C-alpha cells in the first residue's frame, strides 16, 4: 500500500511538472522566465443573479415601453375618412332620454348603414390604388396602415349595425342591408343631380368669365329697358 501510495504521488508530481513544462514551452516560449500561477477570482453567487435580473428587467421594460408607444401611435393615427356623423347621431339618439320614437331610431340606423356602405365602396375602389402607391413608395407606412385600420373598422361597423338592427326588430337584418345599399345609391345620384347648378357657376368663375356674363346680363337688361 505504502509503496503504491508513494508511487502514485510521485507519478502525479511528475505529471504536473511535465505538464507545466510543456505548457510553458508551447505557450510562453518568449516569456519562459516568467512564473505563471493560475489566478482565482472569487465571485459571489449573487453576481450572475444580479446580472440576469438586470438583463431581464431591461428587456421587460423595453417591451412594455415599445408596446405602449405602438398603442399610443395607433390611437393617434388619423382616419382617412372624416368623422362618421351618422354613427354619432344614432348613438346619441339611442342614449337620449326620453327615448325617441322607434321610427326615428330606425331611420338613423339606416343612415348609419348607408354611410358604412359608402365607405365600403370607397375602400374597395381605392384598395388597388393604395397598394400600388405603397409599392411605389409614394405614401408612407402610416398612411398604408391607417387605410388597413379603416378597412377593419368598417367591417366591425357592419357587424355592429347588424346586431343593432336585430335588437330593434328580429329578422330585420337581411332586408335592412338591402335598404341601406339602395339609400347609398340614391344619395350618390342625388348628389350628382344637386351639384349641377353649382357646377355651372363654379366653372364660370374658374374660367374667369363669370363677371363677363353677369355684365352682359346687366347690359341686356338695360337695353331692354331702353327699348
Amino acid at each position, binding site marked *: 500500500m505504502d509503496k503504491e501510495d508513494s508511487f502514485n504521488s510521485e507519478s502525479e508530481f511528475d505529471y504536473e511538472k511535465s505538464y507545466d513544462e510543456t505548457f510553458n514551452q508551447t505557450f510562453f*516560449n*518568449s516569456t519562459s522566465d516568467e512564473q505563471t500561477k493560475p489566478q482565482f477570482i472569487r465571485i459571489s453567487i449573487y453576481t450572475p443573479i444580479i446580472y440576469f435580473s438586470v438583463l431581464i428587467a431591461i428587456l421587460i421594460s423595453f417591451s412594455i415601453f415599445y408596446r405602449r408607444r405602438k398603442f399610443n401611435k395607433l390611437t393617434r393615427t*388619423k382616419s*382617412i*375618412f*372624416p368623422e362618421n356623423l351618422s354613427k354619432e347621431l344614432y348613438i346619441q339618439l339611442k342614449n337620449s332620454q326620453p327615448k325617441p320614437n322607434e321610427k326615428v331610431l330606425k331611420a338613423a340606423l339606416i343612415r348609419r348603414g348607408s354611410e358604412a356602405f359608402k365607405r365600403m365602396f*370607397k375602400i374597395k375602389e*381605392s384598395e388597388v*390604388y*393604395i397598394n*400600388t*402607391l405603397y409599392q*411605389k*413608395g*409614394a*405614401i*408612407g*407606412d*402610416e*398612411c398604408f396602415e*391607417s*387605410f388597413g385600420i379603416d378597412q377593419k373598422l368598417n367591417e366591425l361597423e357592419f357587424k355592429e349595425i347588424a346586431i343593432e338592427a336585430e335588437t330593434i326588430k328580429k329578422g330585420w337584418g337581411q332586408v335592412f342591408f338591402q335598404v341601406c345599399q339602395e339609400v347609398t345609391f340614391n344619395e350618390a345620384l342625388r*348628389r*350628382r343631380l344637386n*351639384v349641377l347648378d*353649382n*357646377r355651372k357657376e*363654379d*366653372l364660370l*368663375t*374658374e*374660367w*374667369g*368669365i363669370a*363677371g*363677363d356674363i353677369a355684365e352682359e346680363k346687366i347690359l341686356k337688361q338695360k337695353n331692354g329697358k331702353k327699348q
Partner: protein
Amino acid sequence: MGDSRYAYDENAQVWPYFVLSILIVITIPLFYSYIANFFAGSQRAKEDDKDYIKKKFDNYKTPIDKNLKKFESGAKKSKVFSRKFFVLCVLIVLISAVVQYAVSTSGGGFSSGGFDPFEILDISSSATEKEIKSHYRKLSLKFHPDKISRDTSEADKKELESRFVLINKAYKALTDEVTRANYEKYGHPDGPQQVTHGIALPKWFVEGQYSWILTLFYAASFVLLLPISVSLWWNNVKSYTKAGIHVDTAANFVSKLMNNNPAEVVKINTILKWISESKEFQLLYPNDSAENFYFLIQDYINRNFLEINSKDLDKTLRIVSMVPILIDGLIEIAATFRSNDIVSKAIETNKCIIQAVNPTVSKKYHHFLQLPYVELDKIDKKIECYTLEKFFNLADFEQKNFLNIQDDNKFQEIIEIGKKFPIIKLISAEFKVPGEKIVTPSSHAHLVLKILIKSPAQKGQIILNKESLIEEETLESLKNPFKIVSEQPPIPPTNAPFFPIKNRQHNGWYCSLILQRDNKLSDLPARITNLSFQNLNKDNKQFLNDGNLIVGTFKLQLQATTPPTIGEYHFRCNLKSLDYFGNDLDFPIKMKVEDPATLETQKTIFSDDEDEDEEENEDDSDFEQEQDTEESDFTDINTDTEDEG
C-alpha cells in the same frame, strides 16, 4: 507553428497611417461629389448662356425683385459654401496634419518582411526548373564574393555578399526539397518567422492611465452615436416619400382624393387649399396656420405684393418655391387614382405658381401676364385678343394700345420675349407596336407624337418634308424605340420672372392619355423633357421656306397591353405645359386594334384639330372633333389661328 503575438504601436509608426486611411476614405468620395456638383452647376450655367432667351429678363425688374435676389443669393450661398465645403476643409487640414506627423516620426521606414524567391532571382513565377537554374548561374557569376573586384568599398562588398546569400536562399527555396517545403509552409526558406499583429494604437492608450478615453470613445460611438445616427437617418427616410414630399402631406392628399366628390368641380383654389395644408410648411413655420399659407399663395398668384410686408414676402417666396414639388407629389398620387380632373387641375395650378398668374381673376388675359411689364389693369379689354398668336396678328400700334405700353424700349422687349414663346403644334399622333405596321391585339404599344414648336409670330402654311416625319425601323430603333426621344436636346429653362427658383429643371409638358369611356387616365402621365426649341430662332421667311424645320418626337409607353379583341378604342390625349399658359394640346385619338392576319396598312389616327385653350375643349364634345382620315396627309399644317375669338 509561427510565434504570433500582439504588439502595440509604441513608436507611433502605424497609427498615423491608420488614421490617414480612415480620413482618406471619407474625404475622397466627399471631394468627388463636391467637385462634380460644382462642375454640374457651372455646366448648367454655360448651357443657359447658349439659351435661346439669353436672360432677356435682366432688364425687367419685378416688383419683388429685391426679395427674389435675396432668395436667390441665399440659395446660391448654400451651394458653394455649403456645410460640405467646411467639412471638406476640416478633413483636408486633418489629413495634412497627420501626414506631417507621420513624416516627422517615421525615420527609416519599414523593412519588408516578405520573401519572394522569384523576385530575387528576377524571373517570372511560371519559369521552369531549367530556366531557374540558368538564371541562377548567371546571377551567381555576377554576385559571387570571389568575382567582386577589389576596388569596391567594404560597405558595397557587404551588401553584395548579403545579396548573394539571398540569391542562394531563393534558389534553394525553388529547388531544394526541404527549403521549398519551408517556403511553402511559412513563406520563408528558413522556417517559421515571428509574426506580429500590430495594433494601430499606442500602449498607453489601451492599457495605461488614459485607457478610459478609449473606453469612452467606444461607448460613445457604438452605444450612442451609431444608434442615434442610424435612427435619425431611418426616420428621415421614413418621413419622406420617394417623390420627396412628407408622408403626412401624402396621407393628406390620399384622404382628399378618397373623399373627393366626383360631381364637384375641382378648382385651382381647391388644389391650393390642399397644398397649403402640407406638413412641409408647418415644419418651416410652426406658428402659422394652413389658412395663412393659403392666403400668402393667393397673394402671390394675384401679384398683390404691395400689401405684403417684406418679411412676409420672404416667407411667401419660400413657400411658393416648394409648391411645385408638392404639386408633383399630388400629381403622382392623383394619377394612380386615375383622376384626370385632379391631375390636369394640379398642372394648371403649377402654371399659376410658376408665372404668378391667377386665371380666375385675369379674365382670359392671363397669357399676356407672362410677358414683362404687362399689367392686368392696363390691358385694353375692348380688344378681343386672348392668345399670343392673335396678338402678333395685330398691327404695331394696336399691340401698343392693347397692352397700353408706350415706352418703345419696353415694348420692343415685350415683342422679343413674346416671339420666343414656345407654341406647340401637333403634326401627327399614332399608336405604334414596335415591329408591326398595325396595332395588334394584346401587344405592348406606345403612343408616338410628332410635335412642332413654333413662335407665335410665325404664321402661314408651311410645308414639311414628308420623309423627315417617317421613322425608319432599324434594329436599333426596335431595341429601344425611345432613343430618338432622349437624343433630343433638353427643354431650356422656363422664363418665369416671378418664380423664386431660376433655371428650374423640372419643366416641359405632361402627356396624359384619357379614356373617352369614363374620362379617367388610362396610363400614368409622362413628362416631356427633351424637345428642340430651335424653330423659335427662325424668322417668318425662314419658317415658311426653310425645309429644315425641326419636328420633335415624344413617345408614351402604354403600361397595359392593347385590348385583346379587335375594334376601335377611343382616347383623348392631353399635353399640358407645366410652366406656360396657352401652350397646351388636347386632341382625340383612336386606337384601331386589327387582326395581324389581315395585313392592311392603315394609319391609326390623325387629327388636326388643335386647341390652345383647355377651357374650350371642355365645352366641346370630344367625339365631334374626331376625324377619321384614312389617308392622312400630314405634310401641311395650318398654323393660322383665325378660328380664335
